[in-house]
């Protein structure tokens, strides 16, 4: 019989193990989410990430080794983003009718996200380099990282802020919007997409198809607006 150490040597250098565990952990996260009656606090991304983080810690596996397996899942983010065009198209009539509210909500939501993050962080005494990395956090990851680099922030810091913002949005959206008494799925989805990009959009799709479609539009439009406005906020912040 082969020693476990030898089997582990194979497993730890092959992408198969961590790809399998990523899908299995997501299966657990998704099952818990469904068993909870789709409660927002039982967020499948958060549960799956926590399970995997514990496994990596226990097995002493580096993130690089993990990602060699998980990259196949990560890669699918690209085609999935492209696929958002389909619910967008299916809701074309809705979207045509709400162009004006969408533009207003985009500008208001996007500015609120950037300015309130910088405002709160500055009030709590965080350094300027952290403030810069915070500015684009509501935009979808590839845009946020590019913007962060362009305005002199740290992209790796921004990556952390983008993911935590997405998970926060996915968790708080339903109770918050219920509290505000907003029942319009278009408004709910759109605001979530603008504030918390793809992770918020994934959550919106779990709740309602129309909300998901509008969330996808909000995410796409805010990617554009953040790329345009973040440099201006950064310049103002640096006192130029």
């Amino acid at each position, binding site marked *: 019989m082969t020693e476990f150490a030898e089997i582990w040597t194979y497993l730890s250098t092959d992408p198969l193990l961590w790809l399998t565990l990523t899908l299995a952990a997501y299966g657990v996260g998704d099952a818990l989410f469904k068993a909870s009656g789709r409660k927002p606090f039982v967020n499948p991304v958060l549960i799956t990430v926590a399970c995997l983080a514990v496994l990596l810690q226990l097995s002493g596996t580096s993130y690089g080794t993990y990602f060699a397996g998980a990259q196949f899942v990560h890669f699918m983010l690209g085609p999935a983003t492209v696929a958002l065009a389909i619910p967008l198209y299916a809701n074309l009539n809705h979207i045509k009718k709400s162009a004006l509210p969408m533009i207003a909500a985009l500008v208001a939501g996007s500015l609120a996200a950037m300015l309130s993050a910088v405002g709160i962080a500055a009030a709590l005494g965080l350094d300027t380099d952290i403030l810069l990395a915070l500015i684009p956090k509501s935009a979808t990851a590839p845009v946020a990282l590019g913007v962060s680099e362009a305005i002199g922030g740290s992209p790796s810091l921004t990556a952390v802020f983008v993911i935590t913002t997405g998970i926060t949005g996915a968790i708080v959206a339903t109770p918050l919007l219920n509290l505000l008494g907003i029942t319009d799925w278009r408004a709910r989805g759109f605001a979530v997409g603008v504030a918390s990009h793809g992770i918020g959009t994934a959550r919106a799709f779990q709740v309602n198809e129309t909300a998901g479609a509008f969330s*996808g539009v909000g995410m796409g439009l805010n990617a554009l607006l953040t790329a345009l406005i973040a440099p201006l906020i950064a310049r103002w912040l640096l006192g130029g």
Partner: protein
Amino acid sequence: MIIHLATLLAFQLLGEVTSRGLDLPLPGPVIGMALLFISCVMWPRLAQTITPTTTVLLGHLSLLFVPAGVGVVGHLDKFGSDGAALGVAIIGSTVVAISIGALTFVGLCKLMATSHD
């Protein structure tokens, strides 16, 4: 199924080339989404054909953020004493942004409804 995935990848590829070629501030997949959307408006059958695959893919959109999310966990302890302030800034600003965005949307819908009366 395979041909549907190939279609999505082709639009992503087109988006990447456009983004880099024209030096646009948008990532390739977002431009690919816009191009696919325009193509669906021009050829409605395209949307019909690939819908089964996109429904499956978008139904498990959460899964696709897991690898990046795991990367974040390794950074969390680096924030030390800044962690609490950052948590407040991120949670606070997300709550503010969702509230203001949704209220603006609903407010404008009401305004437009009354102006039509």
